[in-house]
């Protein structure tokens, strides 16, 4: 499958994520949109890594070139998991205090 399709898919996922973060006020949905953006990146990393590796294999059957991208994906997943645990904890605390997950509540922090 041509690389363009992966790029288009990742781009649309990322855009949905951005628009979601910008427009929604529900903290959980914003959170999910952030995950969407992270995963769009992961998708691209995997796609490019695969393509790069395939090209390198054509000249050298034993090569390892191009697989680092897939390694990065695991890192991102780990970081994302950590982030989710912290973020969800914040949201839970927020809900306990205000009985809402409306992001605009955070405006009060400015004073």
């Amino acid at each position, binding site marked *: 499958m041509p690389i363009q399709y992966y790029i288009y898919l990742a781009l649309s996922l990322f855009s949905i994520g*951005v628009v979601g*973060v*910008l427009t929604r*006020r529900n903290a959980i949905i914003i959170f999910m949109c952030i995950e969407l953006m992270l995963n769009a990146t992961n998708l691209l990393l995997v796609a490019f890594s695969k393509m790069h590796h395939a090209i390198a294999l054509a000249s050298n059957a034993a090569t390892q070139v191009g697989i680092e991208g897939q390694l990065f994906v695991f890192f991102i997943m780990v970081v994302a998991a950590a982030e989710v645990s912290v973020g969800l904890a914040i949201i839970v605390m927020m809900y306990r205090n205000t009985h809402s997950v409306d*992001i605009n509540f*955070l*405006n009060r*922090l*400015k004073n």
Partner: protein
Amino acid sequence: MNNLVYLVPLFPLIGFLINGLGRKSLAKQAIGVIGSMSILASFVVSIILFLQVKSSGAIVANYFNFIDVASLKIPFAFQIDQLSSLFLLIITGIGFLIHLYSTAYMTDEEAPHYARYFAYLNLFVFSMLLLVMGGNYVIMFIGWEGVGLCSYLLIGFWFKNDAYNYAAKKAFIMNRIGDLGFLLAVFWMINKLGTVTYGEVFANVGKLSHQDITIITALLFVGAMGKSAQLPLYTWLPDAMAGPTPVSALIHAATMVTAGIYMVSRSNILYTMAPATQGFIAIIGLATALFAATIALKQNDIKKVLAYSTVSQLGYMFLGLGVGAYTGAVFHVMTHAFFKALLFLGAGSVIHAMHHEQDIRKMGGLKKYLPITNITFLLGCLAIAGVPPFSGFFSKDEILAAAYEKNPILYFLGVAGALMTTFYMFRLYAMTFLGKFRGTHEQEHHLHESPSAMTIPLIVLAILAVVGGFIGIPEVFAKDSHWLERFLEPVFVGSNALVEHKEANHATELMMMGVVTGLVLVTIAFAWNKFSKYEETNTEESGLGKVLENKWYIDELYDAVIVNPLNAFAGFLKNIIEKSGIDGVVNGVGNLVNYSSRQLRLIQNGQVGAYILMMVLSVLGVLLLWINDTYIITFLHKLF
């Protein structure tokens, strides 16, 4: 013996430092002694130097390189030759007498001011010595500026009076205008010759083009115009009478104002090679002599009459320089220093007796109260009028004879000026000392002869004013009798070689002398008669008399043409250009920053969404820039 040279200016400098720094703690007697003795010490050294120069010629003492840049080397050097040794004697000799006189005249001042006075006076003598001793034009210029500064300080000595401060500023600014000319001349010399040392400049004068010499001499003369109060820069000198009277005698009559004459006669070779400038000097000198004399005819302030008389006599000296009678001009500087210092000190004695009354209409009959002042003042008047055998006769006659040789018209105008001089001097004398007293009874009661510290200088100067002329008896009377001319010959030898000297007809010369003397005596008799019976009337002067009384309205003219437009222009710059222009720009920048930051602050509104939006837009912007970087770089290149 060279090591003695630096002592001459050193003594006054030490006197200045002691009196200036110790003015709060020194006793009055000590101040007076230090001030006078430092000048006396200089005088003694000057006599030694004079005798040495007389027997073995000029001394040049090099101390160190004052300016040493690339090929230009200006040494700090003193040159004592016949001309400067003569000036040294005049400055320190008369300077000492005036210091002595000041100890009594200024005795009413409190000790700190008394010390300040003597410190300034010593600083003045130091600067003046630097001026005449300097071995090149730059050292001369240092002294030239120094005397201008001291003149400013001393005119404004009583600084609590606004009018005096104004007079001081006027003197300083007028002098600065002239000094600019001097400075430009020095630059021109450096540019064309690469040296300012007298000996080198005069030896290389042949290398200069005719035009260069004319420009240098003319610019130097502009300096002399300011310092020696010639038309059109003379107006500061009459106003300078705001200073204490001994200051007027020393600075504004005997020494500083003759700096211009010294400078021109020092550069005589340059001037002899620039006939155009010489003609200009003769005309300016004669015009000043006549112009100031007419003003002096109608002045009623005893010091103002003497001030205009000084301007007029300086005009004669420049006339002498202009017609090539360098010896005559220097001779007149010397005799003028004697009799004009005498007259000013006499006037000071009168003012002292009259309790600071300076209007001669309120004097009269002082003869019997101030006998010594009366006699000495009369001798001074006879000397300045040019009655033989008093000193003024010989020096003025020499200048006029040289003028006749050049052009009889100059001579006749000069004689007319001399007659005016005689008239106003005897008007002054008669109104002050003859007739009956016109002041208040209280003043009459307090009239007294001055103390001996004031009368001794008067007597010494009177003797000098009487006999001073005998060092320059004209050739008519006896062969080789002109001692001064022979003494000064080494200084003027270059000029004399360039000018062929016509042998004047002795019969004509004697006849002219006789006629002029006769006219002078008639004028004296006329003025004596007219003003000894002077009665105060309240009639206003009219016509020409009023114009003369108001000094030809020159001050008003300068005010209208130069001072007021300048003030108006300065006011325009201050009120319009600065207030709304420069202040507007400066405040505008400040306001712009203030305003824009107030607007920018609104972006930070605490809305997380807005921040994120901005972040996203910025990232997009950066991406766009990155993609189009070559396009943007070329665009920026086009812009700048």
